[in-house]
């Protein structure tokens, strides 16, 4: 590993750790796992000062405050973090920590109920067999839901998770049909590590650009069913396009890299 890369890696780890601790220490932000628009109150970190910005017409370097990043919508909070140059791995660590924390209570509740069923008398256990299966199934789905939510929050634009849920409930669609999948091209992959040519990097940018055009741009109402429909049509098309552009071999490497980064759980139909 090159020295600069090592330094960068260590710095990212330190920064990620610091930010996670800071966020956890003042954890009055609430993540509602069922809703796409996440209510957020600012973390209790005050007057943290970072390095001054590069020389400009401003006479005095500005003091950075966490409240500059605050937003009621978690997507905007992520956007603000990106805006100050927060490295992607750090950003992922922050978002992941918040999502895992948000799911902590539901997981504990499910585990407690399963444990209670086990502790009951055997006749009750027999009667509650169906309930236990359902609870276990719900518990098993949580990692996938967490991964999907992390991807959603890290996405370029908010994915209409709630709209998907509503639409599925309304139309009686299967869970798989209503899944919101982030196109592979939009997953946070380190392209530099994939030894891609400039042409190949350009076509990935082209696929991203085309996907954005297909869904109508970034400023969309996540509750709009038409937006959901556009997304669901554009996503497999974007994956098809990426595979055609990069070829099967590189596409599979791309998928593997995403898998290693824990991002592919939300892309069940990417493999063909």
């Amino acid at each position, binding site marked *: 590993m090159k020295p600069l890369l090592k330094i960068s890696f260590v710095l990212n780890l330190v920064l990620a750790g610091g930010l996670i601790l800071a966020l956890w220490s003042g954890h009055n932000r609430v993540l509602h796992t069922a809703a796409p628009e996440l209510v957020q109150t600012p973390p209790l970190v005050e007057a943290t000062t970072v390095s001054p910005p590069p020389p400009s017409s401003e006479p005095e370097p500005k003091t950075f405050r966490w409240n500059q990043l605050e937003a009621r919508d978690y997507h905007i909070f992520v956007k603000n973090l990106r805006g100050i140059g927060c490295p992607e791995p750090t950003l992922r660590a922050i978002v992941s920590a918040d999502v895992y924390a948000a799911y902590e209570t539901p997981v504990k509740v499910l585990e407690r109920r399963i444990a209670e069923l086990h502790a009951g008398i055997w006749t009750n256990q027999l009667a509650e067999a169906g309930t236990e299966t359902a609870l276990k199934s719900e518990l098993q789905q949580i990692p996938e839901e967490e991964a999907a939510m992390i991807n959603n929050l890290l996405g370029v634009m908010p994915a209409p998770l709630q709209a998907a849920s509503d639409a599925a409930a309304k139309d009686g669609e299967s869970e798989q049909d209503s899944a919101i999948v982030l196109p592979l091209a939009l997953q946070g992959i380190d392209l530099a590590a994939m030894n891609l*040519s400039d042409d*190949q990097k350009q076509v990935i940018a082209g696929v991203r650009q085309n996907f954005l055009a297909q869904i109508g741009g970034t400023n969309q109402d996540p509750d709009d069913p038409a937006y959901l429909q556009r997304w669901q049509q554009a996503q497999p098309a974007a994956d098809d396009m990426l595979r055609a552009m990069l070829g099967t071999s590189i596409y599979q490497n791309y998928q593997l890299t995403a898998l290693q980064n824990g991002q592919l759980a939300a892309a069940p139909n990417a493999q063909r």
Partner: protein
Amino acid sequence: MKINKTILLAVLGVSVAGIASADEIFLTGSTAARAAVYQTMTNPGCVFQSAPIQTLFGGSGSGDTYMAFTGTLVGGSGSTTINCTWSGSEAGIVDVATPGGKDETFMADSYWQNASGNSDNTTGPASTQQHFVDVCMADNSQAYSPAGSLLPAVANQQYVGVVPFRWLRNDGLWTGSNVTDSQIRQALSGGAKLAVFTGNAADTNSYVYVAGRDNSSGTRVNAFGDTGFGIATSPKQIEINSANGAMVSTTVHGSTKYAADFGQSSGGTLAKTIGVQASTITVTDMVNHVSGYSAIAYLGISDSTTATNSTYQATILSYNGIPWSISSLEEGTYTFWGNENVLETGNTYSGQSLNVGLVFTDLTSPTTGITSQADGNILVPISAMHCTRQGPGADPVHN
């Protein structure tokens, strides 16, 4: 002074009138779509109200490299000339999508301006002009273009039919009749051992290569996309000497290469080289330095017919086990085909015809445009297709 001004205005008036009367639109792009465009241009009631005057160079009829058609547009008035050259699909997309425009080489205006009737010349025009492009034909949409996908979207783009392609082999060591995606991908990477094609364990001392097109080609986009090689992946193809079947060299970063990212600029030339009547069984393989080689190639229907006619001796191959037929293409079992599109530039330039949009409308009309004139072989009309797909590599979905 007053007289001079009057004279000047008069001269300017004449000049402006001259430009206005020379209403000219420039069209380029896919060579695979050339015959279908020719048919649409010359059939009265499609683009022109009555049969236009044809001025053709560099071939014969619908196969000419340079074409100009003069007449009154359907939906228009006065005289308009559509000046065409066939640069290749990818080059066409870049021409119309690049901000400010990129130019192509067209026949000089004097040829069609002085034409008194139809003329067809087998050789190219002695005089040419460089000009911006208004409309292009492409074998894939702009989104699937490696060079065009990041350029601003064109003003208009319309799918008008399906352009089929074929894989062929030359008269080499390999004498098989079917080719698969994985064989093609290996061959595109600089050559695959013959054993991969024959299944014979002993065939490890000779190789199969791809003789292909350069990166201006839409056929190449579809071949690389459909096989999973990757549209934006740089290949190692060969070029074949059309006289004796020998491998042709190119220079890459100062060194001589026989397998590289190069290829023929036209399907017609590729057809003649893959079909050359000179068996490559004894020709030296300059890539792996052994005696004899085999080559496969991708071509449009018209060019593949040339490669297999009595003058040439290439063989048409099944693709992934599916023999070529129009019906297998229409049902989605044969997958080597592209979506033919007409693209209208969003660029404007001084002296540009006001009828560019009208020509786009005429060409894309479902009842009288290109799709209505498709012959069902070189270009398959939309109405005949029982399946659709977004682009090469995507699965054809039955209607």
